[in-house]
């Protein structure tokens, strides 16, 4: 044990004295996580939950316009502007601002729209009653005037946004039409009631939409910037230890220290375990620092903080196995590379490729479908998916076990290959 601690302390001292290593392991990831979370926040929000600026001109100021505006506000998808630069919008200015690209969308409710709608509703009711012989109105009374709600789009606007606006307006218009029709039926039917009684039909809410996240793994859930960037860049930093770790192994191998270590009565394994223990602890520290930053510091930038979920045991399991895999990968690189320069250049390229393959650079749902199939082969995707499961779906140990198992196998595979290669070289 004394020998292990000696090796451990030696490795800690070597790491502390390596300023560039400390910067790359701790300082750079902190900056990277913060900057990437803030930068990607706006990009992700544009596809997730960022409010879209919308011009709105209600020239009639009656029920239809008010109801549509209220409905649009309730979606929380839009920020509605009824005036620009202190000037109230009219049809012309609204179209002008959208055409200039200052706003992606503008909605114009024409004058008298509600009256027209009301008139149309009355005609529908009277026509119905006439057809069943309750009234004696003539067919001439049933000419309908269509109400045109004008929506102006910036040509650069995506189809998904158009569908969202069209859907929201269509939905709230339909609600108004429904209410007007029921009101009109009540009004006309009241004429047939004895003693001047008034019929008042109030529709109950017939359909309730209940939104909740599926507890079963569901890849359609989209993380926000913090939920994506904090675990992603934390994993990137964890696997980045392969460069200092591999370099440390190579420097020991190249310098005379390896010869001294293997000719000492203690086994080289003791020194080696001391070394990898330090880097394992580095990984745990990285997670602690970066996740704490995500939870407590990121909110100061006006971005939602990282929620770690409620299954701390599952979180620890993922962090431990991801650290194990990262350290093992570093050892593998240390076994194969013959110089620091080689480890640094190959290491950087490997991490970047695996990170992009693993969905660290860009959330999975933004990747091409064909590429999404490759994700499962990146060891960086396994812990990332598990973090998503833990943070977004409140998954537990059972749900993360398959990825934990993959990480463990990957790490063990790396160690086996590294030691076999080393043993083979020794025989040579």
């Amino acid at each position, binding site marked *: 044990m*004394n020998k292990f601690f000696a090796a451990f302390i030696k490795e800690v001292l*070597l790491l502390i004295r390596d300023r560039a290593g400390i910067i790359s392991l701790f300082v750079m990831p902190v900056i990277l996580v913060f900057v990437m979370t803030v930068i990607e926040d706006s990009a992700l929000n544009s596809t997730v939950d960022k409010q879209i600026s919308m011009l709105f001109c209600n020239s009639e100021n009656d029920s239809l316009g008010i109801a549509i505006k209220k409905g649009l506000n309730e979606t929380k998808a839009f920020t509605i502007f009824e005036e620009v630069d202190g000037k109230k919008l009219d049809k012309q200015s609204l179209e002008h601002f959208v055409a200039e690209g200052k706003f992606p969308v503008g909605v114009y409710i024409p004058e008298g729209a509600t009256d027209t709608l009301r008139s149309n509703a009355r005609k529908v009711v009277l026509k119905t009653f006439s057809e069943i012989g309750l009234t004696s109105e003539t067919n001439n009374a049933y000419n309908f005037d269509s109400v045109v709600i004008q929506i102006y789009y910036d040509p650069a606007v995506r189809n998904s946004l158009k569908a969202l606006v069209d859907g929201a307006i269509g939905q709230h218009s339909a609600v108004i039409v429904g209410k007007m029709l029921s009101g009109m039926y009540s009004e006309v039917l009241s004429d047939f009631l004895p003693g001047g009684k008034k019929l008042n039909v109030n529709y109950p809410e017939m359909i309730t939409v209940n939104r909740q996240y599926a507890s079963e793994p569901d890849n359609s859930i989209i993380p926000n910037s913090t939920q994506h960037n904090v675990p992603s860049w934390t994993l990137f930093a964890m696997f980045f230890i392969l460069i200092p770790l591999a370099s440390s192994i190579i420097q020991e191998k190249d310098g005379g220290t390896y010869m*001294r270590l293997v*000719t000492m009565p203690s086994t080289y394994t003791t*020194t080696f375990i001391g070394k990898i223990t330090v880097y394992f602890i580095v990984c745990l520290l990285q997670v602690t620092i970066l996740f704490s930053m995500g939870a407590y510091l990121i909110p100061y930038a006006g971005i939602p903080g990282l929620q770690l979920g409620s299954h701390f045991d599952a979180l620890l399991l993922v962090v431990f196995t991801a650290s194990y895999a990262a350290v093992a990968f570093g050892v593998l690189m240390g076994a194969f590379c013959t110089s620091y320069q080689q480890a640094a250049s190959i290491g950087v390229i490997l991490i970047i490729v695996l990170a992009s393959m693993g969905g660290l650079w860009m959330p999975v749902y933004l990747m091409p479908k064909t590429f999404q199939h490759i994700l499962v082969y990146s060891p960086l995707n396994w812990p990332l998916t598990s973090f998503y499961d833990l943070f977004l779906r409140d998954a537990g140990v059972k749900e993360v076990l398959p990825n934990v198992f993959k990480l463990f196998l990957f790490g063990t595979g790396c160690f086996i290959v590294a030691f076999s290669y080393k043993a083979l070289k020794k025989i*040579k």
Partner: protein
Amino acid sequence: MNENTVIEIINLSKTYKGNHKPSVDHISLNISRGEIFGLLGPNGAGKTTTISILCGLFAPSKGDVYIDGLSVRKNKEQVKNIIGIIPQDIALYPSLTAKENLQFIGRMYGLKSKVLKERILKYTEFLGMQESLRKKINTFSGGMKRRINLVAGLLHEPKIVILDEPTVGVDVQSRNQIVQYLRELNRNGTTILYTSHYLQEAESLCSKVAFMDNGKIIIRGTPQQLISGCPGCQTLEEVFLKLTGIDLRD
């Protein structure tokens, strides 16, 4: 094995994989207790390979080495406790201080804190390094590094010290101090096996020498025996050149 023999090399050969020519070719050698034995030869002669086999770094292809009666093939771990290695490369961590390096090495040899502290003081005092104990190795001169490298191999007070070019690349003062210290060590009963290119140094230091070339021992004896046995030779260096030739070696 003679009771006085502390290192016995028997028919030792080593051929690296992919090489046809052996680096060490059937050598046999006895080194007696309390000797300073010089293993000398040009570059590529097989000295470092021989030393590496003695330390247990490589397994021999043929033959065996007995150190204090223990086979390096069968008793590698026990042999490691008997010998102290001072490698040709500076086997120290540059970003650690001299003290931190020595503490690490001492602990790896299983020394207790108190003993380790005493030995660090003892050896560094002799080599004039006490003032520099708290300085990092990467701030040291070549001579200082060599001296700490030497101390590191002696902390566990081995019976046999194996030195591979211990004075290479150091100034005359440092070399003189190292040589003096090796003599002192030998006076206290330590057997020393030493390789060097400095034949003048070997001539004054070693009680016996062997010349190696092309993996073979070409001659052995005391420096005086070798000089007197070589007509026209005044120094060990002249004997060496006569035996190994003047052609440059890789």
